[in-house]
């Protein structure tokens, strides 16, 4: 009895193999449309790239002006929080661009920063925060609701970073 059942399964498996082979003759399309990325994936990917660029900016400034570490480290830590929360929305393939936040391609906008003085460095990061806050809202309408809320929260956080950086700049 069990042998019969096994045989039936083997025969059935053979039938599946045959139909797959037939499908192969007509190309992959016969197997159905491959799954497409959900609408939030591209938006989250863009947001991750924005965070990665900001983190690269902070890294460059911290290397050039170590005296600012006390001011910058708490803000940088929050960007790492942003990045982690955004990445938790995606399954990122190892080795993909999004999995390397501080890649050399994440160059500052408008060329190399002018980091001659702490005040200049603070102004540079303030502008980068403002730009990031705007960029995180660019695709707000396209995002699923919970991702839209996360982007709005991150954008607001970056606006407050700009405020704090400006305050430090003026007190110098």
């Amino acid at each position, binding site marked *: 009895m069990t042998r019969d059942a096994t045989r039936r399964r083997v025969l059935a498996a053979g039938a599946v193999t045959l139909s797959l082979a037939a499908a192969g003759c007509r190309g992959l399309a016969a197997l159905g449309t491959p799954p497409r990325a959900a609408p939030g994936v591209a938006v989250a990917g863009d947001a991750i790239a924005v965070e990665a660029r900001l983190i690269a900016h902070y890294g460059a400034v911290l290397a050039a002006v170590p005296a600012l570490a006390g001011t910058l480290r708490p803000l940088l*830590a929050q960007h790492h929080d942003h990045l982690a929360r955004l990445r938790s929305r995606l399954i990122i393939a190892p080795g993909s661009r999004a999995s390397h936040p501080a890649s050399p391609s994440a160059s500052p906008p408008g060329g190399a920063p002018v980091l001659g003085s702490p005040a200049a460095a603070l102004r540079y990061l303030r502008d980068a925060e403002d730009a990031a806050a705007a960029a995180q809202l660019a695709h707000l*309408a396209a995002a699923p609701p919970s991702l839209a809320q996360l982007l709005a*929260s991150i954008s*607001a956080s970056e606006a*407050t970073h700009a*405020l704090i950086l400006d305050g430090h700049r003026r007190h110098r």
Partner: protein
Amino acid sequence: MTARPGAPGRAAVAALQAALAAENSAVYGYGVAGAHLAGARRAAAVRNWVAHQNARDTLTAMLGARGAEPVPAAAAYELPFAVHGAASAVSLAIVLEDRLSAAYLGLVGLSDPALRAFGARGVRAAALRAAAWRGSTLAFPGLDVPAPGQPGPATTGSGATAPASPPPGSPTPSQPGG
């Protein structure tokens, strides 16, 4: 604009009412906080008080345009803690703004792009005012809000997060007596 029945319209009205309630409690709360502040901090409290009155009027008009009845402010609100000095007044202002961040984030969760953008501006404005009072920032304004009286994860850098909105200890309308 005409009233929009259906689930999206109802969700929008509910989110707008929540934002209005937060603005109403902020108007009341800044009245309390401002009385305990002096100098630049009092001036900031007055500025914010006016800003929240304007926001309340905007939300009232938006609800009216949707054919909804704006829920009026309560006569008095129960404060999350006793306010009898500058430090607790500042803490109250922070609680009010954190609560607003969460309320406006509710609008960002709607499908209407215009309401999303409006909500995002509200989150930003409240987060900026909260950061000015705190002197530090939050990683996720409106999403991860520290308990009242806590400076928040920003200062400690611990990355610890409190449960999502609404922030505990927000001013709540007092029960009418009798």
